C-alpha cells in the first residue's frame, strides 16, 4: 500500500514538473541580445522600441533563409 502511494506521488510530482517546464519554455518571449566590443551586453525584450526596430529585419532573414 505504501509502495503504491509512493509511486502515485512520484508520478504526480513528475507531471507537475513537466507542466512547469513546458509552461516556462512556451512562455519564453522573443528578444534581441546585443553584444559590444567592450564586453557590455544589452537585451531588448518584445515590446521595446529597439526590438520593434530590429525584429522585422531579423524576421526577413529567417524568412529568406527558410524560403
Amino acid at each position, binding site marked *: 500500500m505504501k509502495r503504491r502511494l509512493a509511486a502515485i506521488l512520484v508520478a504526480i510530482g513528475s507531471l507537475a514538473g513537466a507542466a512547469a517546464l513546458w509552461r516556462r*519554455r512556451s512562455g*519564453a518571449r*522573443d*528578444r*534581441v*541580445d*546585443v*553584444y*559590444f*566590443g*567592450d564586453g*557590455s551586453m*544589452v537585451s531588448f525584450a518584445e515590446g521595446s522600441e*529597439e526590438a520593434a*526596430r*530590429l*525584429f522585422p*529585419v*531579423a*524576421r*526577413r*532573414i*529567417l524568412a*529568406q*533563409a*527558410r*524560403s
Partner: protein
Amino acid sequence: MDASQALADLVEISSQIEFAVLADRDGIVLASTFGNDARAGAIAEEARELLQGAAGPAGEPTQVEVAFHEGCVFVVTDGERLVAAVTGRDPTAGLVFYDLKTCLRLSGEEQPANKATAGARRKRKKDDEPEVVDEA
C-alpha cells in the same frame, strides 16, 4: 583559409546552424550555404542592417542574437567581415557565437597566409640569387 572552406567547416562542426552567409563589411557575399547568390546577398544586406540598427552609444555591436519562437538569427562581425546564421529554436547561444567567431577568424587567415607565402617566396628568391663576392 578560404572563405567557403571556413563556412563549410562551420556548418559541419555546428549541428545547430541551419544556414549561414559570410560577407565583407560592404555586404558582398564571400561564401554561403545557399546555392542562390541573390538570396545570400539579400541576407548579408539584412545582417548589415541588423548590426547598424543595433548600434548604441558603445558603437556598432560585435554580436547580435535575435531569438524568436520559431528560430534564431545570429550575426557576428570582426569589423572587416560578418557572418550571419540561422538556427532552430533554443540553440546554445554561447556555442553558436564561438563557432561563428572561429569561422570569421579562419576566413580572415587567408590574407596573412598569402603574405607569408609571398614572404617565403621572396626569401627563396633571395636565397637563389648568387652571392656577390667582393674580390677587391
